């Protein structure tokens, strides 16, 4: 990257971000652990049994946060990928790659926990319904993004090809989100909305939001840890990574 082009692009350089990410990641990991402990406590010991679904509804405390994260992380990944395309900064593409596996994991968990919730509530692990199918497409988009990047030998060319895929695939996120309004679906509507009061008990909502916060903090910690590894992998030959060895950092 050209140096000194714009002063604040300095922070987009891997060597300065490497140290920053290393300092921040443990904080996010601790926040994730503490809020997950609080969220699980609410999920199992504070939130009451559901009148209709009994205890099976407790899956909501992992299903909804995992689904939110799968969609949110895709948008963040596509955003970094788009920045990388526009400004050709090394860090942007690395951030996009750092997010993809964690996003794929949450998309998988959304499908997995959804199947385990669907069986006792609908009588089927899987139905080809708009909400479920579009979430499955999201999972495949994550896998396709990683596979496409891995298939191209030159990482910088791979960055650009994968970024285009990520940006085109971003259209799927609003489709998932609004699928329950646009089509007749077995899946229930949004549990939380900005315009309506929530359709659930306050403790259930609190548990869900605390778990969502925990997954969010975890995702940041995981992405920061992964981006550090990616920086070392890609820039192993550069002076700054070699200097890390000398300082023992």
């Amino acid at each position, binding site marked *: 990257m050209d140096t000194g082009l714009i002063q604040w692009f300095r922070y987009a350089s891997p060597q300065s971000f490497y140290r920053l990410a290393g300092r921040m990641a443990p904080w996010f990991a601790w926040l994730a652990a503490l809020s997950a402990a609080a969220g699980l406590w609410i999920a*199992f*010991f504070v*939130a*009451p*049994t559901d009148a209709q679904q*009994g*205890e*099976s509804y*407790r*899956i909501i405390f*992992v*299903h909804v946060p*995992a689904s939110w994260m799968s969609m949110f992380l895709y948008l963040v990944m596509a955003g970094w990928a788009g920045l990388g395309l526009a400004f050709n900064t090394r860090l942007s593409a690395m951030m996009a790659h750092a997010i993809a*596996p*964690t996003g794929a*994991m949450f998309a*998988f*968990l959304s499908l*997995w*926990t959804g199947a*385990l*919730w669907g*069986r*006792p509530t609908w009588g089927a692990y899987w139905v080809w319904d708009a909400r479920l199918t579009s979430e499955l497409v999201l999972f495949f988009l994550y896998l396709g993004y990683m596979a496409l990047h891995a298939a191209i030998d030159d990482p910088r060319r791979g960055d650009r090809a994968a970024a285009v895929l990520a940006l085109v695939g971003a259209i799927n996120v609003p489709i998932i989100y609004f699928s329950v309004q646009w089509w007749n679906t077995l899946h229930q509507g949004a549990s939380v909305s900005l315009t309506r009061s929530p359709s659930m008990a306050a403790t259930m909502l609190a548990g869900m939001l605390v778990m969502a916060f925990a997954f969010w903090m*975890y995702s940041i910690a*995981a992405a920061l*840890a*992964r981006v*550090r*590894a*990616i920086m*070392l*992998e890609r820039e*192993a*030959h550069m002076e700054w*990574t*070699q200097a*890390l*060895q000398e300082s023992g950092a």
Partner: protein
Amino acid sequence: MNWTAAGEFFSMGGYAFYVWGSFLVTAACIVAEVLLLRARRRQALARVRAERIRHEAKA
């Protein structure tokens, strides 16, 4: 408090397979990702070291 005994907690009102199947697989995925991240960091550091040795051999 929802539960009067530990057995009641673990049976989840008859939905143990679905509820624990969701929470345990989520926990397993997160543990696996953390372990994979650690392994990846170790490998990346090894690559930086290998690069250095190659560089010194050339010099």
